[in-house]
């Protein structure tokens, strides 16, 4: 919360999602898995949350629906449409989950009950929680299936009778059932093959515009993040390492971790040869962190990096949306060129 210089409209009670100083402690760990995460999604905005496995990106998105692991202790605030999810009673939480925010999961096969029909899956939340009559719920399900390009014959099918791509479309339709203001997509394309990935991403983008929802897109795929999002957050070891407008962040990364991620992404235009992998491992949860969590793997690291954790501070001016990075040496990074 050191950054008070956010002129963007996504702050305040208007934001679809406003996470402030979210800290999450799990039993048996030496450091918080999420350590002071600030993140906003404006209405109708697409925000990508990027990071490698274990960086806390999925936990961040899950905390928006308060889907926390057993024994987790959360501090800070997670405001959805101005109301704090962490302070909700069970009834309010169910309303939030049914009508305000919906999640699309990584593996649609695992996310659907193989013993229940698609129609039941689509309508159960409305029927059981919001007491919407079955016919009305089914009507909406047919419209949502149509929006994702599926016919109403799918209603009678079981998940096992649909392909992965079709099922993920069903998941998207399911997320839209309650007319949410925010959709959380937790690596929604990772379990799909490449052509289906593109379809699903295109569809999500379309529907976001059509239904006016904010979208938090969690991914480890930088190319995908750049293609779909307005703004990007890069996470490392439970902290936001860098955030800014997508184009600028990928053109002029101001955090060595973002830079290293970009360098390790395969490109068609890059010269052949070995990809630049990031040496070392992300810090273990069993170890306390002092200083910058990325310091042990960073080629720019100096003494100050291991002594003092860098604050997330503005690194560029003249933007309607702030570009922030948490690095003591962010001014030493140069622009990424096409053949870098």
């Amino acid at each position: 919360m050191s950054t008070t210089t956010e002129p963007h409209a996504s702050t305040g009670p208007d934001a679809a999602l406003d996470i402030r100083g979210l800290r999450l402690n799990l039993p048996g760990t030496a450091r918080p898995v999420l350590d002071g995460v600030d993140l906003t999604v404006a209405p109708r905005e697409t925000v990508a949350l990027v990071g490698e496995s274990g960086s806390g990106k999925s936990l961040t998105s899950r905390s928006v629906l308060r889907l926390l692991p057993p024994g987790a202790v959360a501090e800070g605030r997670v405001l959805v449409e101005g109301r704090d999810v962490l302070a909700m009673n069970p009834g309010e939480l169910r309303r939030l989950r049914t009508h305000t925010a919906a999640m699309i999961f990584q593996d649609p096969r695992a996310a659907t009950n193989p013993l229940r029909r698609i129609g039941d899956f689509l309508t159960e939340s409305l029927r059981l929680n919001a007491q919407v009559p079955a016919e009305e719920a089914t009507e909406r399900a047919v419209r949502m299936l149509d929006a994702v390009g599926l016919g109403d014959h799918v209603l009678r099918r079981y998940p096992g009778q649909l392909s992965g791509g079709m099922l993920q479309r069903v998941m998207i339709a399911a997320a839209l059932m309650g007319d949410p203001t925010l959709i959380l997509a937790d690596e929604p394309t990772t379990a799909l093959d490449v052509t289906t990935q593109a379809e699903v991403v295109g569809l999500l983008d379309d529907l976001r515009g059509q239904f006016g929802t904010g979208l938090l897109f969690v991914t480890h795929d930088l190319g995908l993040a750049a293609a779909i999002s307005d703004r990007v957050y890069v996470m490392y070891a439970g902290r936001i390492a860098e955030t800014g407008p997508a184009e600028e962040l990928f053109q002029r990364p101001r955090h060595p971790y973002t830079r290293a991620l970009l360098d390790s992404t395969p490109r068609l235009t890059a010269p052949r040869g070995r990809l630049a992998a990031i040496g070392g491992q992300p810090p273990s949860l069993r170890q306390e962190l002092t200083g910058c969590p990325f310091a042990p793997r960073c080629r720019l690291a100096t003494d100050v990096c291991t002594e003092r954790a860098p604050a997330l501070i503005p690194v560029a001016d003249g933007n309607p949306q702030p570009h922030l990075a948490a690095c003591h040496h962010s001014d030493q990074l140069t622009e990424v060129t096409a053949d870098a």
Partner: protein
Amino acid sequence: MRFARFAARRLAEMAATLLAASFVIFGAMYLAPGDPASFLLSGRSATPDAIKAINEQYHLNDPFAVQYLRWLGQVLQGDFGRSIEYRTSVSNLLAARLPTTLLLVAMALVLVMAAGLALGWIGAVRGGATDSTILVTTTVAVGTPSFVAAVLLQGLFAVKLHWFPSGGTGTGLLDTLWHLTLPAVALALYLIGMLARVTRSAMLEALGHEHVTVARSRGVPERSVILRHVFRNSLGTVLTMGGLIVSTLLICTVLVESAFSVDGIGQLLDLSTTTKDFPVVQAVSLIIVGLFMTVNLAVDLLHPLVDPRVTLGERRSAA
């Protein structure tokens, strides 16, 4: 079409199994020590003429194959022969006693399903001390054979407390139900423990699936999540277990009916075995085998209803 083929195949299988069972049952009586004639005369030294008359009446002097085929032919026409002990047709004996056994087994089955499922559900969902208590109790139940349970229940509820009769079958429906309560509990106890444990572990397994989290994430109320996504997904296991439960009940009813002097076919089997009343033993054994197979067929037919991934005639592994 697929159903017709499935049904035809299963019926042929059942017929073949029954035929094999009939051969084993008949052969076992033939091989068992002692012969009916000497038992009928109950130790008295009989005149050779008397023994000869009995052997002729029951065709005991014919070769084994001839005896078997004659018996099989009669059974196929619905004639199980005459009881040596009761001097009446076996069919009459069965008609009088089968309903009692079926009622007893049905009562026990209801008890097992109600208590077993409830305990398994509560253990899986509540966890903690409740779960531990249920685990310990069901472990004791599983370790108690039905004949031991019978003696204990008789001692406590019939002899000490006089809440229930210590034996007999009673007359009229209500009286019969009252008489059959203790036997049914004795039959059910072990299986309640069994089913509770199986249900508990199946539900715990189902609880770990991601679609359960997804249902919660969509605002489905917790009780509905458990019913529709956890319990529902355990039903396949429960159904398979159900077949085993009915089979076990059919076996254990022999011991329990004897312990409580309930005049069902279980007690009849027990008595007839000691008196070498072989037409009765053969008939009851065949009926129990037949009931076994009917139950298995029912389980197989119900499986596709419980799990849409299972189709008749082929079984895929349930994920």
